[in-house]
């Protein structure tokens, strides 16, 4: 991930000098995950070197956050909210439908590696519940029909 160093250096322009390496950790991890799909051991070694911090400190931090992953997942990450406002608007039915259609429960990936399903907590989009993220994008006011239409578009 050495090719990302110029990008990381650019981030420093608007940051204060104190605590600089610590404050860069999460942005670097996000960027690396965007590039590789997850955080590999060699990324941790690279960041430990680049940010001059012990590798264990990076592992400790990244293991805390649900968005950061240590292993690859399916090409399409379906993150369906199961918190109260979405549940009140029928997200349980969508989980059932996804199980029927793709054969996976939350936490599982289809054998062909296309879809990973996660049940996630409030995505802060309750006015247009039920809500599901597909990779980085929110899809709102889902119905069984609109969900099926979305699945057809993903290959």
């Amino acid at each position, binding site marked *: 991930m050495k090719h990302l160093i110029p990008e990381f250096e650019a*981030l420093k322009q*608007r*940051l*204060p000098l*104190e*605590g600089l*390496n*610590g*404050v*860069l*950790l*999460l*942005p670097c*991890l*996000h960027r690396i995950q965007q590039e590789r799909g997850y955080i590999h051991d060699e990324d941790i070694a690279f960041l430990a070197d680049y*940010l001059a*911090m012990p590798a264990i*400190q990076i592992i*400790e*931090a990244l293991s*805390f*956050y*649900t*968005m*950061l992953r240590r292993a690859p997942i399916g090409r399409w990450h379906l*993150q369906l909210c*199961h*918190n*109260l*406002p979405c*549940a*009140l*608007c*029928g*997200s*349980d*039915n969508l989980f059932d439908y996804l199980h029927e259609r793709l054969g996976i429960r939350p936490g599982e990936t289809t054998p062909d590696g296309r879809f990973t399903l996660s049940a996630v*907590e*409030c*995505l*802060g*989009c*309750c*006015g*247009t*519940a039920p809500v599901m*993220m597909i990779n*980085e*994008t*929110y899809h709102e006011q889902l119905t069984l029909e609109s969900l099926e239409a979305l699945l057809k578009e993903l290959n």
Partner: protein
Amino acid sequence: MPGRKILTDFPLTPTAHHLDDYRARGGYETLAKALHSLRPEDIIQEVVDAGIQGRGGAAFPAGRKWQVVNPHDGQPHYLVANADEGEPGTFKDRWVLEYAPHQLLESMLLCAYGLGVRHCFIYIRGEYDRPLQRIQTAVEEAYAAGYFGEQILGSTFSCDVVIFRGAGSYVCGEASALLNSLEGKRGYPRNRPPRLTVQGLWQRPTVVNNTETLANIAWIIRHGGAAYRAIGTEKSPGTRLISISGHVAKPGVYEVEMGYPFKTFLEQDCGGVAGGRALKAVIPGGTSSPILPPDIIEGLSLDHESFWDVDSGLGSGGMIIIAEGTCMVRALAVMLRFYHHESCGQCTPCREGVGWMHRIIQRILHGQGTNEDLERLEYIAKFNTGTTICGLGDAAGAATIGILKHFRHEFDHFISHKRSLCDGRLELRCAS
């Protein structure tokens, strides 16, 4: 119309969030005026006079928080806009970021000038896609126009802002956990004292304010603290954004003047309960604020004091409407699963206690509950309150105690009949 408007007082055109539109509405004029004619302490004084309370949930007066910081003490200070919106039912800061990003930025500049801040952060939750794009665009527009950077608008004031993405953690919405996260650590809440305004980010005086709270500052400095104070009620000045969801005909974000009657708000502004059903309960300010039945909430007005009087709160303004026919046992199960999942694990009462509560409610849902289970739930919920570093343990307890207080008969029924008093579902099965 739910009273006067401060934050939403402009038409939502497709370009309303851009700099040109904001300037056409008088945007950044207040900043220009303040930098040349106001002293930093004048800014703080206006915010103290306005009496604006934090909109993240705790309703602590922003001015009193700011007063702790001495702008002239010679050490670095930091300002953080808390946009890590994660309280279930809350999506109002999303609105600010998407539609009024420059209002937030101008307000942050005014605050930074008042508190002697050189570097600001906007901590936005990692999942937000369009809000992130909108605030990023606004930041670049503001830099290009010279509102951020060195010697802003020909003054001696310099300020930078950085957008920082969270990585999926509810507890990072708590201010001290948020600062640890910014520092590149786990989002563990810190013990107080010291207050963050004394020792915050990198042990420096730091002000963390909710996004909506900050977005009001430009209006307050422009029109004066007294003008702000004249809006709303005596104890809850101003307006607030209510994000309403669940079984409601017209969900969305509404700006409401404090003191506006709840009943009118729900029935006239939000179109009433979806599908014309009867109202069963309302969670008034995110799931951490205790649930209220219709006979109590229908008599209340939307201000802090009214909700505190009935042992609940307006919290984060995330209002969840629940229609007749919804199973409250399942509703509590959803909430407890959430708090259990989001516990950071630092404090035993929250890490273990909320886990116990989660397992008890699952047991009840599976028809294996006993009569002692409700007492156990209540006992753990009460024990959690006030025994943890942050409010997450309290929140799980308050949500549990609130729902048992008003809907205990449903839990008793579930335990004795091994099935729900309602049909056991949460969603409303009718066209809305």
